[in-house]
């Protein structure tokens, strides 16, 4: 029993402090209590509620409750009310009014029962609905919850100097056995399958708790084991008198074992803080002391973060030596980041700005004086004494801290704020202006890491820098870079020295390619490709993408990288479109549009709902945190326009060239075909409004051979204005429309003519005669058109051959059979796993198809297949020759 007395003694000694402590510790204790005390069962709801209300008072009243009769009365009545409510359902209850003690005993028992139940179903984590909603991050288990509660109740019991109820001991013993058994079972890996990760974790923490508790009650447990009956009798006899004595509620500590043990220490601390707060004199002498206090208070629930920041700011003012200033700055910046603990909302902008300034300051100090170093790992040092280079070994003062994590955090917070600010307001633009200072900070830290030659953080910071500039047009990059020249700390590579943005990005990427971290390499590569694509350097971008073999491994990358990959591929498609490589553009953009989740795949918006499953709140939150800030978006409407127009240019002539129904089903671009069919079914078509309308009507015009109308419709699409070189793109499109118009015309009307004059064709489509001749020659050569040219008269002679039905069918079946064989060869290839294949005659077509199917199968939930069609054939060739040789290429 001595233990309980000691405990009581402790509380006694506390009482002097209790008044001072009350302000701070009162709410501190209450806060963690709530989630834990929230029981799963409604039966305990009421009592728990009253618990916490009494708890919140408990610390200040503590031992003085004897004299304080009134609130006690109130509380008692509360409990009574609670009891009467329970009365009907509780058969054990004999008396109408029960003492608190009985109440407690009952609770103990009930808790034990709940635990038993949970144990039976082997459920270490049973997050009830109510809990998961309000305390999702509390991965508590029913059992743990209940166990904690049990301990708490028992604690209270012991505080009241009452003997332990035998039931508790019994439960404890039984429980220990179960836990051990469960662990043993787990060791055998049998239960592994059954138990998910949370469950397993819960079980482990349970084990710890049980062990602790058993130790605590060692004596009682032994007593009980020796003679259970005696124990019970003793308890009963003890209970009798107490029963009579307890007219008032017990003031007890609800804190669980661990916390109550810590209590004295905590108290000490808070006393000092209080004193320090009062006597806090901001002088250089006791900076470290104050710093230590602040440091200790960090992360505690009741710490006033604003106050801490103020303290630190004052400290910074008085700090004299570099060492002091570094130390204070380190603490200050981290406490600024602490200010906002919520994951969803972003850091207040003024705080962010000052944090940014302070990081800058910090870097300046460290760069200016190389005898100070901020490192993540240092030897232990006494935080309370001043240090200077002279007293240190090697003449360098090493201070624990991490600038890279500050920079990371600054950047992340910046992105987060952009995600949360309405992109159409002025606030967004204002915020965006801060990117300049952020960029400068990043560059400064790059300079710092270059100077101190720390490769790992340097790579990280270079990546950050790259991410700020890779997707931006030259003008923006030079604006960002312009601030660098003025500052005295500059990294080795700046725009001023490397003249063009491309070479700047090139040198940054080269640096990253040499890094060990493969994730950084991948991201650098993608950014590099993106940059090339943005600058219309299609071939380089394509070759880099294909040679990097990223499309094979990207499925296993993290989501952010996959998003970057998607962005890169899309940008590549747009680049092809701008360069007039219609087929490539179509093939590249095809994949992302067939998924119909363009926005989601580019992280530019969450799709409202999905058919398969509803997203859980966490998923949604994660999704949201991934979204790109608005200024990074690739305009999806523009993207769609580019895709549909290129699909039109590919698909319409193709549609015209095929006659039989069977072939018609094979569409190159399904999304386009779908839209076209839909437009065909429309009874009445009004003037076009949306981009799609324009393109659909243009397609119909193209099908009818009215290329001028088609051109006008396409060129009147407003969204083109967002394209960098709108005028030249429009021109290019006009030219392509002319050509494809001619092809479509020939395909469509060839059966109705026996000869066609070349000059007429050239006039109709306003193409030079040579171009017309060349195009028709090409069609003849490729056997798309059965015709020949008559040079002397300048006409195309069309040979029309009508195939009879059996002939057509024969051809179809021949096609199918050869496709079958090809497919078989493909399968065997895959089976044998030879990269070159056992027969490399497969040719491009079969190869492509095989890869396509493979890709579809392998497509993850968020990634898509990649560049296909034209470039692919070549890509697969690269695949065999090269390996991952990107570093070599540039």
């Amino acid at each position, binding site marked *: 029993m001595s233990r309980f007395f000691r405990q009581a003694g402790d509380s006694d000694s506390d009482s002097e402090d209790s008044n001072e402590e009350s302000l701070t510790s009162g709410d501190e204790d209450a806060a963690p209590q709530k989630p834990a005390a929230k029981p799963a069962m409604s039966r305990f709801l009421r009592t728990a509620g009253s618990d916490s209300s009494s708890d919140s008072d408990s610390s200040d009243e503590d031992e003085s409750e004897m004299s304080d009769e009134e609130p006690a009365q109130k509380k008692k009545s509360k409990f009574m009310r609670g009891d009467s409510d329970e009365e009907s359902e509780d058969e054990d209850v004999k008396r109408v009014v029960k003492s608190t003690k009985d109440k407690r005993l009952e609770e103990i028992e009930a808790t034990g029962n709940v635990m038993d139940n949970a144990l039976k179903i082997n459920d270490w984590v049973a997050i009830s609905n109510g809990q998961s909603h309000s305390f999702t991050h509390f991965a508590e288990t029913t059992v743990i919850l209940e166990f904690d509660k049990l301990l708490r109740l028992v604690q209270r019991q012991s505080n009241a100097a009452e003997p332990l109820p035998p039931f508790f001991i019994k439960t404890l013993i039984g429980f220990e056995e179960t836990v051990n058994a469960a662990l043993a079972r787990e060791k055998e890996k049998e239960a592994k399958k059954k138990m998910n990760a949370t469950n397993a974790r819960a079980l482990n923490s349970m084990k710890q708790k049980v062990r602790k508790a058993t130790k605590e009650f060692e004596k009682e447990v032994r007593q009980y084991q020796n003679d259970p009956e005696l124990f019970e009798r003793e308890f009963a006899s003890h209970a009798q008198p107490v029963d009579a004595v307890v007219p008032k509620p017990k003031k007890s500590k609800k804190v669980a074992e661990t916390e109550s043990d810590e209590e004295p220490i905590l108290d000490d601390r808070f006393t000092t803080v209080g004193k320090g707060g009062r006597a806090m004199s901001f002088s250089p002498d006791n900076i470290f002391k104050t710093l230590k206090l602040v440091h200790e208070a960090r992360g505690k629930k009741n710490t006033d973060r604003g106050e801490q920041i103020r303290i630190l700011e004052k400290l910074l003012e008085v700090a004299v030596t570099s060492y002091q200033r570094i130390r204070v700055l380190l603490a200050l910046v981290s406490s600024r980041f602490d200010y906002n603990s919520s994951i969803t909302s972003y850091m207040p902008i003024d705080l962010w700005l000052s944090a940014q300034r302070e990081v800058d300051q910090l870097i300046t100090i460290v760069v200016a004086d190389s005898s100070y170093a901020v490192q993540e790992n240092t030897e232990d040092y006494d935080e309370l004494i001043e240090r200077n280079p002279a007293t240190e070994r090697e003449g360098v003062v090493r201070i624990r801290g991490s600038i890279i994590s500050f920079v990371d955090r600054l950047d992340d917070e910046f992105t987060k704020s952009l995600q949360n600010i309405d992109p159409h307001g002025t606030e967004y633009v204002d915020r965006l202006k801060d990117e300049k200072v952020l960029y400068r900070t990043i560059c400064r830290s790059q300079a710092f890491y270059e100077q101190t030659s720390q490769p790992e953080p340097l790579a990280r910071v270079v990546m950050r820098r790259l991410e700020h500039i890779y997707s931006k047009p030259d003008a923006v990059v030079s604006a960002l870079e312009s601030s660098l020249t003025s500052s005295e700390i500059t990294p080795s590579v700046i725009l001023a020295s490397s003249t063009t943005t491309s070479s700047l990005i090139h040198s940054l990427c080269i640096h990253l390619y040499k890094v060990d971290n493969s994730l950084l390499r991948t991201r650098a590569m993608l950014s590099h490709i993106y940059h090339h694509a943005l600058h219309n350097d299609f071939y380089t971008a394509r070759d880099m993408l294909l040679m990097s073999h990223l499309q094979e491994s990207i499925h296993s990358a993290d989501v952010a990288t996959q998003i970057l990959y998607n962005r890169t591929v899309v940008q590549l498609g747009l680049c092809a479109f701008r360069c007039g490589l219609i087929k490539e553009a179509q093939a590249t953009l095809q994949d992302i549009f067939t998924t119909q989740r363009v926005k989601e795949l580019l992280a530019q918006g969450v799709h409202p709902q999905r058919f398969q499953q509803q997203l859980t709140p966490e998923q949604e939150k994660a999704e949201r945190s991934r979204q790109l800030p608005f200024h990074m978006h690739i305009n999806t409407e523009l993207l769609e326009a580019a895709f549909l127009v290129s699909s039109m240019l590919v698909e319409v002539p193709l549609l015209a060239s095929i006659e039989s129904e069977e072939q018609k089903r094979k569409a190159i671009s399904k999304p386009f075909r779908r839209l076209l069919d839909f437009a065909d079914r429309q009874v009445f078509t009004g003037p076009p409004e949306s981009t799609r309308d324009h393109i659909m009507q243009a397609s119909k015009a193209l099908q009818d051979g009215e290329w001028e109308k088609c051109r006008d419709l396409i060129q009147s699409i407003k969204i083109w204005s967002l394209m960098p070189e709108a005028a030249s793109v429009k021109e290019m499109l006009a030219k392509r429309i002319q050509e494809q118009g001619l092809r479509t015309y020939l395909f469509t009307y060839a059966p109705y003519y026996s000869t066609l004059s070349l000059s007429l064709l050239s006039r109709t489509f306003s193409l030079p005669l040579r171009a017309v*001749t060349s195009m028709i020659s090409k069609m003849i050569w490729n056997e798309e058109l059965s015709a020949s040219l008559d040079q002397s008269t300048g006409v195309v002679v069309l040979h029309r051959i009508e195939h009879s039905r059996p002939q057509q069918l024969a051809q179809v079946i021949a096609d199918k059979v050869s496709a079958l*064989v090809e497919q078989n060869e493909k399968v065997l290839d895959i089976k*044998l796993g030879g990269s070159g294949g056992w027969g490399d005659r497969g040719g491009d077509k079969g190869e492509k198809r095989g890869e396509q199917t493979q890709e579809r199968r392998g497509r993850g939930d968020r990634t898509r297949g990649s560049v296909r069609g034209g470039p692919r054939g070549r890509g697969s*060739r690269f695949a*065999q020759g090269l390996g991952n040789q990107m570093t070599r290429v540039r």
Partner: protein
Amino acid sequence: MADYDLSKTIIPYLDRHLAFPLLAHLVETSLFPIEQVQAAQYELAKGTNMVDYAVSLFEQLHPDEEIPEEFSGKRDKAVSTNERLQLEAQAVLDVIENPDVAQALRQDKIQNLQYLKDNYNLTLEQITALYNFGQFQYTYGNYSGAADYLYHFRVLSTDNDLNTSAHWGKLASDILTGKWETALEELNTLRDVVDSRSTSTLLTASTEPAALTQLHSRTWLVHWSLFVYFNHPQGRTLLLETFLSPTYLNTIQTSCPWILRYMATAAILSRKSAAGGTAASSRVRHSIREIVKVIQTEEYQYQDPVTSFLKELYIEFDFEAAQRELTLADRVVGDDFFLGEFREEFLDNARYLISEAYCRIHQRIDIGDLSERLNLSRDEGEKWIVNLIRETRMGAEAKIDLEKNVIEIHRSPLPVYQSVIEKTRGLAFRTQALGTGMLHSPQQPQQPQQTQSQPTVVEGAR
């Protein structure tokens, strides 16, 4: 014309000694100022042990200057080294040339080594002396001697790296002595070495450097093989065969797109075998089509008159432009070190290609016009066309109407059955091959020989 000269691009991929013929050729063509070329020759020779040659070049270059001192010292040193190395090598050679030993040697190298060690006290180090001597001989220009020594070394040595090095040395020596048959053999074995090394090393952890070295070796091999392929009688076909295989096509596309010129020329040159020959594999038969495809994809990286000729002819179908490019290409080919000899043949074949394409597309052709397209006079043109019709299979379709001075071509459309037969041809064989492939695979998974021998069987059948 100097713009299109590839010597400068190619030389970095050649051995010092292999570059001499190229430079000598440049002296002849006088594309560049002769002094510059000579200076280059001198610089090149200075780095070798061919002291006398370097001295003579120096005298040519600076007729009125003293010969630098260093040469005599170098000469003495070379002679002494030669003697020393020869002594070392001779010991080994004496043993090997012993008929008893020659008979006792077997296929197994390790066993051989053991045998030599036991009976003649020959160690690996001594055998390496063969390599050293061979290499030294090479440096002062005794290529045939070098080839001999390196050959002996390779038979005995087990050191992989040195063996590969000896391979390269032997190939260079064979090329420089002009033994094209042996050079071709050497080339093929070297190719196998380069290719096979990949599969063994690629499987190990350090893929990256291995892949890179492989790429480098292949690039070098591609350049060196040009010597062989454009001198060996069967060379052009073999060139197409090799360079169009996926691995080498990759190499060319990634690291040396200028080789496309040689591929294109070889394809044009081997047109005849492509048109009539049944022996040529499908790869060679369709080489032009393949190469045109590659030229199209690589257009942004490399183009010259030869490739643009093919491009204009088969992609743009612009006969006038093709004709223009042909005139240019003709000169380029004439000036090229490797292609120079084939100038006439090239022109001839290119004309055939033009007229073939022209005839296929047109129904009625004016003879005068066609002659003009071919850069021929009217009479010549007519003769040419008659020959063309006679030689190719167009005989049944094309007729010359002398009165109107036109050729009439009546192509009957391909009958449906024909196309069906065409499509289904070889399916049975392919299926059979599939079956064999399946049977063999379980016992020998990833057996390179097996997998590579397969396609030729099938293609022959097709």
